[in-house]
């Protein structure tokens, strides 16, 4: 459900002192995939654009805080 996060499963040693965090995640924000922005992308309404910080849904990058996004259990869907 969150196509902008990726998860990975870091190595966990049997000798680690603390309970392991088995899933870690990071963001891959949309600008990494657009290259040169094509013309005529769908747009938010002006009011939505003001709220989102961008005119284009394709550039919108919601941020789910670290810890919450892993618990959603989704890397990419």
């Amino acid at each position, binding site marked *: 459900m969150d196509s902008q996060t990726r*998860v*990975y499963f870091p190595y966990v040693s049997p000798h680690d002192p603390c309970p392991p965090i088995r899933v*870690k995640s*990071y*963001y891959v924000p949309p600008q990494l995939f657009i290259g040169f922005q094509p013309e005529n992308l769908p747009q938010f309404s002006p009011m939505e654009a003001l709220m989102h910080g961008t005119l284009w849904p394709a550039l919108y990058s919601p941020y789910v805080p670290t810890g919450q996004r892993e618990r959603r*259990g*989704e*890397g990419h*869907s």
Partner: protein
Amino acid sequence: MWIYEKKLQYPVRVGKCDVRMAKFLMEQYGGADGELAAALRYLNQRYTIPDKVIGLLTDIGTEEFAHLEMIATMVYKLTKDATMEELEAAGLGAHYANHDRALFYENAGGVPFTATYIQAKGDPIADLYEDIAAEEKARATYQWLIDMTDDVDIQDGLKYLREREVVHSLRFREAVEILKEEQGRKKFF
């Protein structure tokens, strides 16, 4: 752990007694975009980068130390037999006052190395983009250094080092592509 081979990655020849060039080469020794900064940056970032690219950072960080040795060798060859007058004329009088002929991690302007030259943001994309930028800046520095000397032997070594920056930059860009790929859909935790 590392295994050390007692030879340079690429042979370093210096064909001309040119103390002035030693001062300029210091930019790649202890400068912000130099080999020390590069090695420390990559070998530190690797701990918190996704597993798939840890090895890349380890390998490139290690190679940067091999480059550091090459720069050190050039600087040493250019300064070891210089007289105090020659050092002073080359702008290395202050360096002599502080360090004799010892090498030190400073940039071409004599500013000492600082950890603020490097960053580890923890965000894999941010870190890899910094690494790409660092490689491009180092490539540019090598270009200007090549411009500043007519010693073909030094130029040869610097051209090799410049080429390695090109290769490393591409490897980091590939790492970004690897991290962009879909990983682990529908995992069970």
